[in-house]
């Protein structure tokens, strides 16, 4: 059969983020799959170097709207390690609690998206309605539904009051009951089981060799979890189970996330019971002594990694972020081998991708030249202007006008 290569994206009605996939098909069968990142690079790492540590927390927090606490905590941990700050225990507990609330919100959101991708929109409506319970709690604790602004270097900004604790416990009861219902649906609803079983297979060996993280790895029976492997915040003092599954497919990933929801409810309850009294933050210096640190955090989607290098000033010299999707994206090509095109949306959705967080800086190579060389920014710009001019659009006048305006602004 003749092979057809179809591009999906970077602009596509089914994609919420600009991302480019190229799928080689023989009929309906996927022969090859490749993903190209880099359409949404925001230069956050570079921007961090121009701002103080205090301002960076807010910038880092905006890497992702769903894992905002993840990134801010991960960054704060690295800076605290460099500065040798002893974060108060109460602050560590609060960080864990917010982190778990965030996991609940992310997993419920994922469940809805997964339902939507397989045409089970009732599940989307149900889970997103229930997700409001945890969103309201997050808004009550932190003031915002996303980008909580909870972290500072050396602790957290806002404390938990007894009323808050009471509200969280009540919300956990509601959500636990709802999650039990979803688990029942996932275990008994035959259409859902048949739609998800055997789709996006990833064996344990492949998960290990491709370096999968988070629920994607755990659904392939790899018991890998940063919260246990390299405990941070208060996790060393809390008892929890790592949920794994051996289905190795999208169905397994669904079960893992639901199991993790139940674990998170338990974790939050124990954390609230054991939360120590005391201060919630210590004063941190504005200037962080020279040094470097590497910090890990188990985001809802998998392991998140931050590297920070300090040079003794109030601004970092280098910040490097690796969001969990970058570790998981390689597995998608493996999962799609010899599958039907109709499975593509749910297989991609099953790793819970977040492409804006993943995007790295790319270099463009001019492959037409005999020895490929890195195309410089200015060259690329001139190429763009030339290309438009050859297509009958002349930007040169407009460019001049913009340049003059830019000078006037400064």
């Amino acid at each position, binding site marked *: 059969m003749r092979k057809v290569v179809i591009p999906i994206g970077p602009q596509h009605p089914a994609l919420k983020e600009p991302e480019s996939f190229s799928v080689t098909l023989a009929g309906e069968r996927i022969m090859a799959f490749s993903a190209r990142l880099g359409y949404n690079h925001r230069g956050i790492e570079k921007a961090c170097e121009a701002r103080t540590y*205090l*301002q960076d927390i807010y910038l880092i927090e905006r890497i992702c709207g769903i894992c905002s606490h993840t990134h801010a905590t991960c960054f704060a941990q690295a800076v605290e390690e460099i500065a040798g700050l002893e974060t108060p225990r109460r602050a560590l507990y609060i960080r864990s609690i917010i982190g778990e609330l965030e996991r609940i919100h992310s997993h419920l959101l994922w469940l809805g998206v997964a339902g939507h991708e397989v045409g089970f929109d009732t599940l989307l409506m149900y889970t997103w309605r229930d997700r409001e319970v945890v969103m309201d709690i997050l*808004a*009550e604790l932190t*003031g915002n539904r996303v980008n909580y602004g909870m972290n500072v270097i050396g602790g957290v900004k806002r404390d938990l009051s007894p009323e808050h604790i009471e509200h969280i416990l009540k919300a956990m009861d509601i959500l636990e009951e709802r999650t039990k219902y979803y688990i029942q649906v996932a275990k008994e609803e035959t259409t859902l089981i048949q739609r998800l079983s055997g789709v996006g297979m990833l064996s344990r060996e492949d998960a290990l060799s491709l370096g999968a993280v988070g629920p994607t790895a755990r659904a392939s029976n790899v018991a890998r979890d940063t919260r246990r492997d390299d405990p941070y915040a208060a996790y060393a003092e809390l008892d929890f189970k790592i949920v794994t599954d051996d289905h190795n497919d999208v169905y397994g990933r669904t079960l893992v996330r639901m199991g993790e929801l139940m674990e998170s409810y338990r974790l939050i309850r124990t954390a609230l019971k054991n939360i120590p009294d005391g201060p919630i933050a210590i004063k941190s210096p504005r200037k962080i002594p020279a040094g470097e640190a590497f910090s890990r955090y188990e985001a809802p989607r998998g392991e998140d990694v931050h590297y920070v290098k300090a040079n003794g000033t109030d601004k970092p010299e280098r910040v490097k972020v690796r969001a969990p999707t970058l570790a998981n994206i390689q597995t998608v090509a493996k999962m799609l081998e010899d599958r039907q095109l109709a499975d593509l949306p749910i297989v991609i959705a099953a790793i819970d991708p977040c492409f804006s967080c993943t995007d790295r800086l790319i270099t463009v190579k001019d492959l037409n030249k005999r020895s490929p060389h890195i195309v410089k920014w200015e060259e690329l710009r001139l190429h763009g202007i030339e290309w438009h001019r050859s297509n009958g659009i002349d930007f040169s006048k407009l460019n001049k006008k913009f340049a003059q305006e830019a000078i006037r602004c400064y």
Partner: protein
Amino acid sequence: MIRPGKMVKQVLESLFKKPATSQYPFKKSAMPDRYRGKIIFHPELCIGCKMCVRDCPSNAITINKVGDKKFEAEFNLAKCIYCAQCVDSCMKKALESTKEFELAVLDKKKLKVIFGADIKEDVKK
């Protein structure tokens, strides 16, 4: 299998339950107590230390001296990310977060808000 009888129960329950959605903008939901909305400035408390300007992650505030120990604050509401860092940084509690969140306007100029302008007039007089 989920038995149809169970579904009937769910359907009947949903018939009498309050809808999960609300009729915004006719019915506004209450903002949480810790909500960080539009910032307001109390010029009488400000000492002009400019800590807020230094800590603001998005360069949304400028503090201008308008008279002897009198300052006005200029906020760019479009730049502000409503993180309330300025409120935390201000030792004199001259800044305050409000629960106001409907800040969309059609005229861009309205996004620049100057507080303490009345004092400026006093100085001129």
